[in-house]
């Protein structure tokens, strides 16, 4: 499939960047004229993936987070969020709703949010090497109104 547009950024895993990451992705996606709900879905899913890099992948350290957003024909958006952190031992288990390795203030719903707010999610992870989360979302093609 042909890429129409692409955006890449790298940032440190500081929690202050959670806001920046979702805002930057939303700003890039705005060129497709998404609905407010679609834009919020994307922001929420990105926020989950980026927060996981900060909270889990680089638990007690600071590392790099790599974000790529690609736009394909028919308003298909592919968002890749990658870290070189600790990795996930059992991805299937990690994706179960309410599963969390950090008790207390975490609900264990990050993957559930990503799953239901996008059309497709794939997670690749290697222990000690890192994790890549890929989120696909197809925006509704809206009927142009000339009135």
């Amino acid at each position, binding site marked *: 499939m042909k890429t129409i547009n692409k955006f890449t950024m790298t940032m440190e895993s500081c*929690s*202050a960047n*959670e*806001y920046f990451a*979702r805002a930057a992705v939303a700003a890039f996606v705005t060129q497709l004229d998404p609905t407010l*709900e679609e834009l*919020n879905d994307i*922001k*929420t899913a990105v*926020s*989950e993936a980026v*927060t996981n890099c*900060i*909270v889990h992948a680089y638990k007690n350290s600071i590392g790099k987070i790599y974000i790529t957003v690609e736009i394909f024909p028919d308003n298909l958006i592919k968002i890749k969020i990658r870290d070189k952190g600790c990795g996930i031992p059992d991805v299937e288990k990690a994706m179960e709703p309410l599963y969390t390795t950090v008790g*207390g*203030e*975490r*609900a264990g*719903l*990050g993957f*559930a*949010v990503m799953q*239901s*707010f996008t059309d497709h999610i794939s997670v690749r992870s290697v222990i000690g090497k890192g994790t890549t989360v890929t989120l696909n979302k197809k925006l509704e093609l809206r009927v142009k109104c000339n009135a």
Partner: protein
Amino acid sequence: MSVKISVKGEVVTAYLGGELDHHSAREMREAIDTAVELNIPTLLIMDFSQVSFMDSSGIGLVMGRFRNLQRTGAALHVTGTSPQITKVMKLAGIGRLAKMDLGGFEIENDK
């Protein structure tokens, strides 16, 4: 991000504002927990009407406060949630997880 606490009798209200994520949740949590410890309310109201964005960190914030309130049997009301926030809350099955009634997120404790 902002949090304002108001205390009226046995009711503590936390007016939250801005974007609620992992980064901003900490300050909100500390402000609410301090107010609850100090005032031992029978009802905590978390007012989301000025919150423009929330991810699952917000669910953690609500669930964590709910757990704390269970010690004294106080009730928790979550109000003013925007469509985006309502969508995240619903996904969390707030009504299913604990004894919570989803109609307007009136979260009541058993006692």
